[in-house]
């Protein structure tokens, strides 16, 4: 472990420095700034991809100490590779799509400055090799993503930003609490598959620490009772920001939970305790509540935000039953939901910046005006509902069969039932939009039809992500093998 691979900090520092530099640069034309951002994002993706191709044992960087016991340590394992590549890919896609969207917002340069910085911080988060490093970058992520939320600086935006901040700080402190409790036991908190502590019949205080960490990281993942920031922050943020918040930053919370439960505490410690049951109940509650709220919601972006609340809890549910098949399903859902939700938010953004419509009932006939956008929207909706052979079908299949095999009394049945109900509700709140969009009814005035389709810069990322979401569902074997390996190592 004494080999230091300094290349690991490249994808971290490059976007951060590029972002900070952006604050001071002056561009003659918007296009020049966009080229600069595009170049950074591509180089970032390439470097993360290069790291992902290296063997795991060469990817360690253990050089920085803040204080005794505070060791900033990077180690890249399979999970880090997947998260970092996903992040960099989504960042590039949403970045391209945002060039057109941001034209109608002010202070573009400031937005991109923070956009790049958050990208770098997320790579660092994925590469973290111990809990402290993770916590450091988790806090930084909150802080640097807050300006994205309150970009337009209206009263609501600032209030939403503050709400986001308070929830996140409270969550982060719960994590820190758990961190201290573990530290108090004199444990060294370096991630290792299957957990470091991992003892049966642990003292109650340790279980409490794990519970606090789950709820703390669950704040970012939008788990009940700390989900409140999500539906407030998403609608006021610019669409690209809500896309990455929903698609990637919520997953950072998931990553945190995976790391603390499966890599620090260890599943054997939690299995069959009140922590596991409470966790399962909370995630089931969130799934149901999120879908219900989404079903009732009238504002498109808010509806999508509630949908995120419910979908991310699918992932948490899969993690909470502690069963290899469900674990694979959960990780698959991380990828699929990320692709789907980003596409949904980008298309919502396209609708907003081209037509200015934000409410669901205004979207009647929009499929005639923006056919490609709405086709992408419809396809990924179908995916999210889980219609075979699209991708979320695969992940839900694994989630449900894993849950049924888990043998958790009672909950192993209730969970799948709620998943099915929620799938129905998902169809209810997403497909109705598509139906109204393409089949506006008889009183729709075809004469007034205008083509609002955005240009290829916005369409290309949507199409690529939609295609991936569908194709990965038809050929999931490669991904599945990787995830099965991870599941085998931790469970």
């Amino acid at each position: 472990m004494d080999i230091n691979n300094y290349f690991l900090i490249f994808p971290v520092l490059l976007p951060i420095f590029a972002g900070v530099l952006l604050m001071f640069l002056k561009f003659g034309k918007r296009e020049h700034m966009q080229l600069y951002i595009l170049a950074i994002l591509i180089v970032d993706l390439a470097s993360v991809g290069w790291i992902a191709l290296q063997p795991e044992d060469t990817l360690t960087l253990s050089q920085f100490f803040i204080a005794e016991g505070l060791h900033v340590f990077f180690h890249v394992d399979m999970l880090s590779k997947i998260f970092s590549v996903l992040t960099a890919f989504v960042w590039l896609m949403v970045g391209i799509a945002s060039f057109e969207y941001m034209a109608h917002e002010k202070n573009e340069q400031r937005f991109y400055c923070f956009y790049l910085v958050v990208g770098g911080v997320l790579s660092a988060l994925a590469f973290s090799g111990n809990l402290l490093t993770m916590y450091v970058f988790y806090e930084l992520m909150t802080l640097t993503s807050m300006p994205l939320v309150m970009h337009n600086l209206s009263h609501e935006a600032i209030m939403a930003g503050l709400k986001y901040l308070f929830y996140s700080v409270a969550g982060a402190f719960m994590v820190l609490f758990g961190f201290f409790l573990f530290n108090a036991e004199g444990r060294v908190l370096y991630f290792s598959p299957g957990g470091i502590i991992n003892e049966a019949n642990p003292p109650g205080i340790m279980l409490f620490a794990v519970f606090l960490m789950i709820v703390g990281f669950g704040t970012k993942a939008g788990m009940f009772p700390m989900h409140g920031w999500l539906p407030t922050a998403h609608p006021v943020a610019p669409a690209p920001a809500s896309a990455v918040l929903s698609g990637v930053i919520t997953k950072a919370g998931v990553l945190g939970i995976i790391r603390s439960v499966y890599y620090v505490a260890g599943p054997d410690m939690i299995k069959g305790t009140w922590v596991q049951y409470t966790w399962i109940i909370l995630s089931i509650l969130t799934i149901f509540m999120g879908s219900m709220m989404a079903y009732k919601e009238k504002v498109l972006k808010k509806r999508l935000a509630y949908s995120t609340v419910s979908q991310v809890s699918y992932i948490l549910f899969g993690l909470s039953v502690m069963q290899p098949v469900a674990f694979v399903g959960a990780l698959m859902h991380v990828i699929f939901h990320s692709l789907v939700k980003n596409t949904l938010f980008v298309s919502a953004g396209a609708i907003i910046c081209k037509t200015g419509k934000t409410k669901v009932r205004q979207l009647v006939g929009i499929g005639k005006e923006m056919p490609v956008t709405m086709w992408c929207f419809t396809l990924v909706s179908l995916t999210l509902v889980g219609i075979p052979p699209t991708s979320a079908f695969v992940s839900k299949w694994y989630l449900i069969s894993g849950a049924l095999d888990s043998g958790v009394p009672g909950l192993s049945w209730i969970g799948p039932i709620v998943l099915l109900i929620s799938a129905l509700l998902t169809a209810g709140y997403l497909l109705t939009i598509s139906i109204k969009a393409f089949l506006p009814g008889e009183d729709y005035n075809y004469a007034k039809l205008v083509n609002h389709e955005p240009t290829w810069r916005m369409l290309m990322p949507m199409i690529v992500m939609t295609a991936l979401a569908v194709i990965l569902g038809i050929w999931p074997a490669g991904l599945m093998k990787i995830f099965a390996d991870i599941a085998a190592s931790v469970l």
Partner: protein
Amino acid sequence: MAFVQNFPFFCIILSMFSAIISFVMNGRIAKYIHVAMVTAVLILSLATLSFVAGTGESYTFMMGHFPAPWGNEIRIGELEALMAVFFSLIMMLSVFGGMAHIDREVQDSKKNLFYILLDLLMASLLALIYTNDLFTAYVFIEINTIAACGLIMIKKQGRTYVSALRYMIMSLVGSGLFLIGLTLLYSITGHLLMSPAKEALDQIIAVHSYQVPLMVIIILVTVGLGIKSGLYPFHTWIPDAYGYTTPSASAILSSLVSKGYIFLLIKIFYRVLGFDSIISSHMVNILFAFGVIGMIMGSVAAIKERNIRRMTAYSSVAQIGYIYMGLGLGTTAGVVAAVFHIISHGVMKSLLFLSISGLTEVSDGRSDYLSLRGAGLRNRIAGAAFTVGSLSMIGMPLLTGFISKYLFASAATTAGNKMITAWVVLAISTVLNTMYFMRTVLTLYRPVSAEVHKEYTLEKSKIERAAIIGLILLNIGLGVASQPVIKAIEAGLAMFG
């Protein structure tokens, strides 16, 4: 005896003499003398620190070669030298950071007086740090109080007189209690030097005599110094005292003056009364309770405050609560955390007070929330400094505030039944800190229409900006590489015993 061993004594004498010489000089020359003196003290203290760290043991320095119990002594260990380094460093940066304001706000005829007061303050702080004699400590406490009063009312405006008077009364009550405690101690031990007093006390404690007077001594000394350092129920003088004077003075008062008393208290706990008897007298529990209440109440008061300088002053109440909470844990780790927070809070608070002056200056000199809108955009460097200071206060990783919080929390883990309370309060206080500091930061970066605020032509004082940047770097430096400082504190506390 090595020549370096004289340095602490030189530092004290040097600062006292600069005060005396400055009486006959005009303001400009007094300023140069002060700057030269602080720089010299910093360099000499650094040399002392490296010497003490090198030998690994403390030494006592007799004044005029009269041995105890008649003579006067100072004692130099690693912790004392470290404190001297930080105090002189913060003093220097605070004075540089508000230099232009001092020139503008202080009357010409009073300028030399201002620097004399600063010189005296430095002398008394150094003496409080180094002294091995309780009565010398008392004398310099009084000098410190008088100098601080002068600094509070140096602007010669209505409110500053009131706040100086308030400070004076509270402080005199504090030093009065301390003096009574000292008298009682002298009457049961017969010594005023710390080491012989401790020996005598150990004998007294061993035979269980004088238990009530000992208790009274502990209470009087602790409460006396607690009042002077602004521990929670005795904090009412803080917001006025810090809120209206010139920025350098606010920075120095909040980050140094109150800390000198806390350091003296720690020293008396360890070197005279004995930390064990403090624990067995349950004084730590009381300190813990008041510290914890202060952490919450200070933040609550700060949230209610609409004036940014008074808000920052209330935040000091909360931060002093942190320090007493650390002391109250009753473990060495807790004391290490408390001492680290003395340094860390000094670095953060001086940065905040200095940046506030830069911000109010571009807002028609007003310091309420409404006027400060967009101030961070009008004065970039002050805005950045305030943001860094706030983030550090909240405890963002990689800044010094996080290390403090980490040290407090890990110290709490070994403190038995105080653990959960300490953590819960740390958590609540973090969230409260976030509330008022982030609210302010957001206000600073909220754009306003151009009509409301005319263009300000800032006379950009290079030296102020350099000092502010220096403090920002110090915040980051302490947050990233705190290891040597923590090691030095641990070694220094070990030398205390």
